[in-house]
């Protein structure tokens, strides 16, 4: 995370500043990040820049990463838990090119993990930074479209509306059917949208040792959850918050209590459930864990 002007750190592309953004922009973003850390869960406006990728591809997360990354950092990028999807591969390659940093797929080795919609299964530790790509930062948006009004509601801690949404879920579906972007209360003060991660990951945010930063490029907002911060999922006394459960372990590594993806195998209804966190799955298999379908060559599963 050392911030240095490194005009010659990336000699292959002399026309770019280190980590793509110019230093003034990085400073501006860092100020926003510092403010966000100082007020956990509060959405800090920032002057989001045009990035060489379309909105929706993680421009907010990329700007946050660019503002905090230093030459010594090791970067991991995941998309829905996987290191090998287009978005993850492109962003990893982007920073390898413009910042010349080391990249990894291993959660333990990374100092910065940029993520789209998952928190790694491996417990994060002090010193690591998790950077979330956020499409819509405002948790109140769907019930109150006026930004002036939602900001006032945050300022005055008027969060009855959040429970209106949960009430509607229960009234319609018999339970709180929100399964991702499940709203949380941060440090007993601000209601926050944890980005479209599955609610399965919400408990991992609570008192996490790692710093969590959230960047929304199109919406021009940055917010943060500093280490060891209280993050509580909203619920009702008689409908307490619950995470998803899976009735079988990972087909490849036999892991239980992890978030699983469904993978369709063929045209005749064949399917398997595997870890969404690919690094976690590979790690376990390397340690010798075997799931019920682990005998199949991986190629057929793809």
């Amino acid at each position: 995370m050392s911030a240095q002007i490194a005009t010659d750190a990336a000699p292959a592309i002399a026309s770019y500043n280190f980590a793509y953004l110019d230093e003034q922009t990085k400073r501006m973003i860092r100020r926003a990040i510092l403010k966000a850390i100082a007020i956990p869960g509060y959405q800090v406006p920032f002057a989001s820049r045009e990035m060489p990728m379309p909105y929706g591809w993680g421009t907010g997360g990329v700007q946050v990463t660019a503002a905090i990354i230093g030459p010594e950092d090791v970067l991991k990028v995941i998309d829905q838990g996987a290191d090998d999807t287009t978005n993850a591969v492109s962003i990893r390659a982007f920073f390898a090119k413009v910042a010349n940093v080391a990249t990894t797929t291993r959660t333990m080795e990374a100092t910065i993990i940029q993520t789209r919609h998952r928190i790694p299964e491996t417990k994060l530790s002090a010193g690591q930074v998790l950077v979330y790509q956020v499409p819509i930062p405002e948790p109140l948006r769907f019930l109150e479209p006026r930004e002036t009004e939602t900001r006032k509601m945050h300022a005055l801690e008027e969060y009855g509306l959040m429970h209106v949404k949960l009430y509607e879920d229960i009234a319609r579906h018999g339970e709180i059917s929100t399964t991702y972007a499940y709203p949380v209360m941060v440090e007993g003060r601000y209601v926050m949208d944890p980005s479209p991660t599955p609610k399965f990951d919400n408990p991992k945010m609570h008192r996490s040792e790692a710093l969590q930063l959230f960047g929304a490029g199109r919406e021009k907002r940055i917010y943060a959850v500093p280490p060891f911060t209280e993050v509580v999922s909203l619920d009702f006394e008689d409908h307490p918050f619950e995470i998803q459960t899976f009735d079988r372990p990972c087909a490849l590594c036999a892991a239980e209590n992890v978030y699983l993806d469904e993978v369709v195998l063929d045209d005749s209804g064949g399917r398997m459930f595997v870890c969404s966190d690919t690094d976690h799955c590979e790690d376990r298999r390397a340690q010798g864990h075997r799931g019920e379908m682990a005998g199949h060559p991986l190629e057929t599963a793809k």
Partner: protein
Amino acid sequence: MSDEILIEGDAGFAAVAASERPLLSVSGLSKIYGARIGCIDVSFDVWPGEVLAIVGESGSGKTTLLNCISSRLAPTTGTVSYQMRDGRMGDVFRMSEAERRHLMRTDWGFVHQNPIDGLRMSVSAGANVGERLMAVGQRHYGSIRAEASEWLGRVEIDADRIDDQPRAFSGGMRQRLQIARNLVTEPRLVFMDEPTGGLDVSVQARLLDLLRGLVSDLGLSVIIVTHDLAVARLLSDRILVMKEGRVIESGLTDRVLDDPRAPYTQLLVSSILQV
């Protein structure tokens, strides 16, 4: 709370029961829009359990006045003080915004002429009624729903409509839902802006009767703006007649309507169509 003030001469206040003092006290209130007058130098008190009607034709300033006293609009000059639940008088325009908004969603209600302005059209009737409860911290789904259901019953909406959105409701039902949504926190003061406007006569009668019952059962204080003198007669104890931003006559409702003094009031009363 430094934002609250006691009214002058409060030395013996503790000895006077809260019901013996005005709930709301408006003093020297004016709202000027540039060269145009909204309302000018209006003063009156509203007492606990009293229904006050503000009548006048459109443009007379009655809605501006209502918006000012309900703190939805800042007046140019004048004060509005309110007897808080702890018995102290609070200056509505010197409270913090947080305090004022809290007041507006707990101890006050506001019934809009058009229910769309007062309801969340895309959430269910139950959630519309329950919102205020959740806003003040109720976190038990079952009891919120039970209370919402009870209130729907009180405003004569069938319990099986609790999960329907108000867009599926008729105009009269929407208005009744808006009333339930306001009353669920048992406010002591409710502002109403032409609550029966735009409704069919039969629907109007039902709503008026319902309001009358609720007002007397709950001991509500109400400030109701209407251009319909029949509504004012049916619901209110006292009446203010407004013309060109000023209160030109006030008093006991039946006295003002049966023995109007001001020329304009006589004109208004004589303009009522007889059935």
